[in-house]
């Protein structure tokens, strides 16, 4: 009998995509849903080690940690090195709400020459470079679910979705990638 419970990766063993758009499951990361007023931004930025973006659809990244603007007082923080973001935020002496959502979300990485087309197969969001340059991020809809799209490179995107929707998101992205590769 197992002595301890095993945490399974929500997208373990999933594979798909095409030569034009690779679809892979992202590695584990810690995530924080952060809400704070304008007066707390500087203290939180200092505590988290990066400047919380203030402009719509922008992000800040440093050493594998990303802060994504989701709303006027809302950010999604992702740390690929699995640092304890909630503990870091707690060091800021300013009123804020920080909820650890590391295991609520998971991410699918889409990369390749036609990565944007693979995502656009099920999302109405405009991903053209003029309005969605590298570093841009947005919460939007993808098929029937809500996702956060984060452009990490010229041809690389990170699609954050809720864990329970991950198989749906992955399958739809893989389908889109196959269509984009035709």
């Amino acid at each position: 009998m197992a002595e301890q419970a095993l945490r399974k990766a929500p997208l373990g063993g999933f594979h798909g995509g095409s030569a034009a758009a690779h679809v892979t499951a992202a590695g584990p990361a810690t995530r924080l849903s952060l809400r704070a007023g304008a007066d707390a931004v500087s203290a939180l930025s200092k505590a988290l080690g990066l400047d919380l973006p203030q402009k719509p659809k922008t992000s800040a990244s440093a050493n594998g940690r990303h802060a994504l603007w989701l709303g006027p007082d809302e950010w999604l923080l992702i740390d690929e090195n699995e640092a304890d973001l909630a503990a870091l935020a707690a060091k800021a002496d300013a009123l804020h709400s920080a909820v650890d959502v590391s295991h609520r979300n998971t991410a699918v990485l889409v990369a390749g020459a036609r990565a944007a087309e693979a995502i656009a197969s099920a999302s109405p969001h405009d991903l053209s470079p003029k309005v969605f340059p590298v570093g841009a991020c947005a919460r939007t809809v993808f098929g029937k679910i809500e996702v956060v799209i984060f452009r990490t490179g010229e041809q690389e995107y990170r699609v954050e979705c809720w864990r329970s929707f991950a198989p749906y998101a992955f399958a739809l992205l893989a389908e889109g990638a196959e269509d984009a590769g035709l």
Partner: protein
Amino acid sequence: MLLIYCPYCEEERSELEFRHGGDAHIARPTNIADITDEEFEAFFFLRDNPKGLIFERWRHVHGCGRFFNAARDTVSDKFFASYKAGEPKPDLPGISPATEKTVETYEATEGTAK
């Protein structure tokens, strides 16, 4: 697909990201416990349901999550303007609400179809 301008995201986004939130600029009485049932009914239930220009609350529920207000034409579905919650009704010079003649109605296009 209808594109709606979100004043918080500062760009037009797909209608799929938005949810309608009823009439805008409805002031809640400050003396809510003192008003009569008729006054409460008028505040709580009665709406104008105009044909043409209407000011409504909308929520960018699958985007920034914020409520904002928008001026829309109920006949043509055209959005004239959207503005942040709490801001006064904007002046909309030169905007005349659509009439039945400016849109294709069922009667006009299919009325005699057999």
